[in-house]
């Protein structure tokens, strides 16, 4: 119960600091109007500035896999909401709502309040 509350608080805190991404640059390059639901396996979680990236391996319908490069909030902001470089690990199965690149290439924007573990389990962060 306390962990769920911590996770919810984390999401709330992040919302209070961000609109469409608390960014040093515009995230308008990603399609904010047509989000995409992705489910896949974390290949790598790059917790580096200026922005974090999740490399997400997504199985396509034909069985092949595409690795998406997803740009997120800065580590400087995430760490204040309890995230760290260890919050997501290679092999973690996650579900996200992303704002995709307008070109259709496998890239987009991820948000901490729109990612959870497979099955709906929230990402638990500590404060």
């Amino acid at each position, binding site marked *: 119960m306390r962990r769920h509350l911590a996770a919810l608080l984390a999401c709330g805190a992040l*919302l*209070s*600091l*961000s*609109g*469409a*991404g*608390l*960014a*040093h*640059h*515009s995230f*308008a*390059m990603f399609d904010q109007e047509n989000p995409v639901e992705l489910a896949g396996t974390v*290949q790598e979680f*790059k917790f*580096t*500035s*200026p*922005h*974090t*990236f999740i*490399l997400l391996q997504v199985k396509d319908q034909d069985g092949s896999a595409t*690795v*998406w*490069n997803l*740009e997120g909030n*800065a*580590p*400087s*902001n995430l*760490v*204040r909401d309890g995230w760290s470089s260890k919050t997501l690990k290679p092999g973690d199965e996650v579900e996200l709502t992303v704002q995709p*690149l*307008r*070109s*259709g*290439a*496998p*890239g987009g924007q991820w948000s901490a309040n729109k990612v959870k573990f497979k099955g709906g389990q929230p990402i638990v962060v500590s404060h």
Partner: protein
Amino acid sequence: MGFASLNPSYGDAAMSCQTALGSLVLAAVLIVTAPHARAADESKYPDWSGQWRRVADGGVPRYDPSKPLRKQEAPLTPEYQALHEASIKDQDAGGHGLDEAYKCMPQGMPRQMSGVFPFEFVIGLKVTYVLFEYMVQQARRIYTDGRDFPKDEDPTFAGYSIGKWIDADGDGRYDVLEIETRNLKGPRTWDQSGMPMHADNETLIKERIYLDKADKDLLHDEMTTFDHSLTRPWSVMKNYRHIQKIMWTENNCVEGNQHVTIGKENYLLSADGLLMPTRKGQAPPDLRYFNQAKK
């Protein structure tokens, strides 16, 4: 602190001894009184120590916190309004418009005071520093030693700032820092939508920074910017919250930057480090210098 000659006569030696003793006494007095003098001076200044972040309002950093991004109602000239609209259109198509922050260009003034990341003040007797966590927001040096603006100095993105401490409420302690900033370099934009500042870079920024009277953890920056992209000066109030749980992080712009600019086109790196288009139908970069057969 003078010392006597090495080869004096007796009389000269006595004089030298007196001089040396006098110097030692003076030095001792200075050692005792100097810290107290500094402490007395420091007590005249406000306590702005610690970490400050812009007051969270659910939106992204912008010049006028009272209005949303893209709806700032900036008093732009028709020419600069058209440039801003073109920038927004480009961003909505997958580009970055006129905003160059994505490639780690310094944000410059006044944008760097929009508080995207935390900062702190270091108040000295002759200069006050504003230090930012984020590497592309350069340190500001606000000179309060009575100097004038330099006549011939290269401009910078953060500009040259001269300040004056004011005791606004007459209680014997400074509470307002008035600042004027000039000598700026570009290109600079007002915010991440790419709203451009004038290409002549003749920006003048005036600020009054002070703590809220009712809330010592709230800092105000009354800012007025004069710029030829505007039809009139643009005044706003920026507000910063004192952060209790201080955390400073590594915050550079280059380590994990995946945005690539080639010519006038921007791309994003793929998961395997190759170029990806960001717009529909975007052409690959011009490769004319690769594998050119000698004619």
